């Protein structure tokens, strides 16, 4: 079905039953078809015209069994498989009774009706009071679209469970139709006193992948979440990550993003001693762009946040990071930092970094900085004069540049290594890797 048709149906009030709880505003948002463009501050580094200019199709149903069962999926343990954005239990390998429970969002809401008030499908919850005071509602379109079209899956970590095994979330794509928009929607709830690590791996795709993750880290719990994106050849990714952190709770977020993607991260340090470390690598090649908006809001006393970003642009590509730190009134003793470093591999490559601070409390510590650079020719000559080939020297230097950012959750992690190697392989194909 075409998205347009679906929207027409919505206008007549003829939408899916299970979405009845969905806030009316979300539907209005979709009806408005208000896709943000470069006029919206937060979207000025990402072209949305390929999204606007296409007639998208939607998949309201899971892919047929015979489509995915005949595929060979890796036999990773502790893995949740998503195919074309749908959770597929049959090929997943999560152990029973290990402290993690999976629900469909509608089931979860039946059991916990109050939970829907936590969710962000209500666009007004997303609207930003920008520094200029202008209410900027537009970025909510993608989130509303996602929550409207996706059934949503809830991953709940039981109270006081310390889960030793790393849990994999793997996104595979079988749909070959590049006209399709898929909407993976994952909700993670870490209940009080729990500890868990997830590694999310998204394979390459040719379609429009519009993902949403909403994360709740309750009191005294700790979540490590690594989100790793493979190269994106022809697809488009719009992605939102929202996280609420309670008292003494902590989020370690690790991101590997690629070209043709727009990431929107919002982390709320809601209570006393809430804490987050965010480290991200953004790699872009060809003439594509990779854009990240990352906002951390300090609401609780003594809350801490630390952001480290490394951006690499090859060829004529663009990387961008807009890191925003808001410290609300009464968030005394907050400590926030943001640092980004950009590396340009080509004269025509670009990178933007914009740290923004909005501090409404006096008793806080905030640090921020951004640096931009090219590969130093003297260093390159030094390495070559010791016998290292120019291309290898460049790769070594890039590796050193991103080494400070650890993506791995545990020691033997092939995924992040392979993904970064793949980027190197790709840029090595450039004749003039570095000009």
């Amino acid at each position, binding site marked *: 079905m075409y998205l347009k048709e679906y929207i027409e149906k919505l206008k007549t009030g003829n939408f899916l039953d299970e979405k009845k709880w969905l806030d009316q505003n979300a539907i209005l948002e979709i009806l408005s078809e208000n896709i943000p463009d470069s006029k919206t501050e937060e979207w000025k580094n990402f072209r949305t015209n390929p999204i606007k200019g296409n007639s998208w199709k939607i998949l309201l149903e899971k892919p047929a069994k015979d489509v995915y069962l005949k595929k060979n999926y890796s036999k990773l343990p502790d893995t949740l498989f998503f195919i074309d954005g749908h959770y597929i239990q049959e090929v997943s390998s999560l152990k029973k009774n290990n402290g993690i429970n999976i629900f469909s969002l509608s089931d979860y809401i039946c059991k916990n009706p109050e939970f829907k008030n936590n969710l962000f499908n209500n666009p007004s919850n997303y609207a930003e009071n920008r520094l200029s005071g202008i209410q900027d509602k537009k970025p909510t379109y993608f989130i509303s679209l996602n929550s409207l079209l996706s059934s949503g899956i809830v991953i709940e970590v039981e109270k006081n469970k310390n889960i030793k095994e790393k849990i994999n979330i793997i996104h595979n794509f079988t749909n070959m139709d590049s006209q399709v928009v898929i909407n993976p929607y994952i909700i993670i709830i870490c209940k009080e006193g729990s500890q868990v690590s997830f590694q999310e791996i998204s394979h390459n795709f040719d379609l429009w992948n519009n993902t949403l993750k909403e994360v709740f880290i309750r009191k005294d719990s700790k979540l490590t979440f690594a989100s790793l994106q493979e190269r994106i050849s022809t697809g488009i990714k719009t992605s939102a990550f929202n996280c609420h952190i309670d008292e003494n709770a902590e989020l370690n977020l690790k991101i590997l993003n690629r070209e043709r993607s727009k990431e929107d991260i919002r982390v709320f340090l809601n209570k006393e001693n809430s804490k987050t470390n965010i480290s991200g690598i953004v790699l872009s090649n060809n003439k594509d762009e990779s854009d990240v908006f990352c906002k951390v809001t300090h609401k609780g006393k003594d809350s801490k946040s630390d952001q480290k970003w490394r951006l690499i642009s090859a060829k004529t590509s663009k990387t961008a990071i807009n890191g925003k730190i808001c410290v609300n009134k009464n968030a005394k003793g907050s400590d926030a930092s943001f640092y980004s470093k950009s590396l340009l591999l080509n004269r025509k490559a670009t990178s933007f970094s914009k740290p923004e601070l909005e501090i409404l409390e006096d008793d806080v510590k905030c640090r921020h900085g951004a640096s931009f650079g090219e590969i130093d*020719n003297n260093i390159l000559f030094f390495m070559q*004069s010791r*016998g*290292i080939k*120019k291309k*290898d020297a460049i790769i070594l230097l890039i590796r050193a540049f991103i080494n400070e950012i650890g993506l791995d959750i545990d020691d033997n992690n092939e995924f992040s290594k392979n993904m970064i190697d793949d980027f190197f392989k790709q840029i090595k194909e450039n004749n003039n890797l570095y000009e």
Partner: protein
Amino acid sequence: MLEIKNLSVSVQNKTIINNLNLKIEKGKKVAIMGPNGSGKSTLSNVIAGKQGYEINEGQILFDDVNIFDLDPEERAAKGIFLAFQYPVEIPGIANASFLRTALNSVRKYNGEKDLNTREFLDECKDLSKKLKLDTSFLSRDLNTGFSGGEKKKNEIFHMLMMKPKLCILDEIDSGLDIDALKVISNGLFQYSNENNSLLIITHYQRLLDYIKPDEVHIFNEGNIVKSGDYSLVETLEEKGYQEFI
């Protein structure tokens, strides 16, 4: 080993090497001394293959082959080593792992198989002991936070590990304390044999006292203005460059 014929090099239309002729025979130790800005480092860089210079005229033959078309890494693989006047810092790359990459890259070029890691590390440790370089320097990021003298020692460490045929030492002795100078001179003296050559660029007599060069050239404005044997160093020490330029 090395033969430079009628070499003229300029940067931004300014001539830096001016019709230079220099021959370094196999097994010889050759010293170049010259005032600041006379073009000594430029010459080293041009021999090692650095980009960004205009070669207006001339040839550089290494083992009778013109090397102008070779990249710096190919020259290194053929056995040319340059110890930098200002060694660069590379954060994020450990010294030993850099050196292993360099050695393996050269070996690959010469059709040899990779080093045995164990043996490589043993050799590193042996050599660092000889050079009085703490083994922690192997795991530290290359030159990052090294003192000036430690950087110079590390250059010699790389050189002795890479075992080049032609060693170009651009002011290896500047910034070294007396003990370090002894250690390094010793290392160089022991390394030198009938199959390799040293090109030593320096401002000071002391290093040359240890090494005893076979030939000494005085360099000015991109050319050799006087050549002689070791006694030239003493004359220079007494009378200064004024006597020659």
